[in-house]
């Protein structure tokens, strides 16, 4: 008999990769935490080290509405406008 395949292949959407800056000196770092326990603490510590030891100009921690949704528009807009690199946290 002939069976039809019930699965769907993931569509290949090719997104342009923004080239990384060669160094973080003078850059603004956005850190997005997903509200799970300690995600803010680990990101904050990372932000502090990057600032103290790697010349990062500033960092800001953004809190998602909750872990189950992507970062909301206001976060994305603010990061796009005022930051150079982003670290997003997933899992707990």
């Amino acid at each position, binding site marked *: *008999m*002939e*069976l*039809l*395949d*019930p*699965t*769907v292949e*993931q*569509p290949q*959407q090719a997104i342009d990769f923004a080239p990384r800056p060669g160094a973080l000196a003078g850059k603004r770092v956005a850190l997005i935490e997903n509200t799970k*326990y300690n995600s803010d603490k680990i990101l904050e510590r990372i932000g502090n080290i990057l600032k103290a030891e790697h010349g990062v100009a500033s960092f800001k921690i953004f809190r998602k*509405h*909750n*872990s*189950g*949704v*992507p970062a909301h528009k206001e976060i994305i807009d603010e990061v796009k406008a005022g930051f150079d690199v982003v670290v997003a946290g997933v899992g*707990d």
Partner: protein
Amino acid sequence: MPTLSSKRHKVEDLDATEFCFQQGWTDGLPVIPPTEERVLTMLKAANLNPDDQIGYIDNRAVAVSAEKVALNAVMAGCRPEYMRVVVAAVQGICDPAWSYHGPGTSTGGAGVLLIVNGPIARQLDINAGDNLFGPGWRANATIGRAVRLVMRNVAGSRPGLLDRGTLGHPGKLSYVIAENEAESPWTPLHVERGFTKEQSTVTVLAAQGPHQFYNQLSNTAAGILTTCADDMRTSGGIGRQAEHVVIIAGEHMKTIAADGWTKADIRKFLFEHTQVSHEHLKQTNRIAGAVQPGDDKKMRALVAAPEDFLVVAAGGMAGAFSGYIPAWGSKTTSRAVTKEVK
């Protein structure tokens, strides 16, 4: 004759069941091999074209076509007349308010509870009575299963990969009930949620397993619901203030109705009696932090508002048991969505 676009596999008749297992298409139980004829019959019964889009799951970037829903409904063992209910349920899980990402991947191991209302429940013999959550009714077993197979095969929610449920629960095979509108003295769930009695609907909720509570002593509404509240008060949900479905079965239904209580009265009572002190919540490690002075008086409600209790009359007429089902997460992460069965 509509054209189906799914990839085709040639298999020997006797090997078809095994083939479906090997391909990873099943939920662990055998499936009905999805042939073109069966899929076309399923589509026809719901009056759909193969490439009609049933929904779009945003963060999986996946469009769910009628063809794929029909394919998975065939595998689940649905009769063609069930397809319309499956479609409504899939529309529910694609709704942004249901927010697929959380229930589809979380360690919280959500099942997808489907509550069916309206004439379709009787037309399709969707069980609303004895052994409500148990096996035995084809519609209940296969409609929920179809939705789960769509989640697995179309949206990619496979256990261990995208589906990170730590424990999961048996409702993840199928979790379908109808409200016992024939014998209930109360307004049906879908009418409370804005539909007419004559419309048929599916309410979809990302949910934990059912908890049962027992009360054979009380002959008052307050008596029965006190037990319910006591059982429910610290169920998984107090921190998140998740929606809770309250299932009132036959004997309890009669007792509560005899006292003249409406669903609204039930909700109000439960809301007032499911408050827990911050002291207790901290002592039992349900919320973080050290106990502060005054925490014994500071109360936290189980749900954000009384409306977050979804009261459903269902279950067997005999037996002093009713139940409740906590939703998987807070309302901001996923909430109950009701879709009309067209």
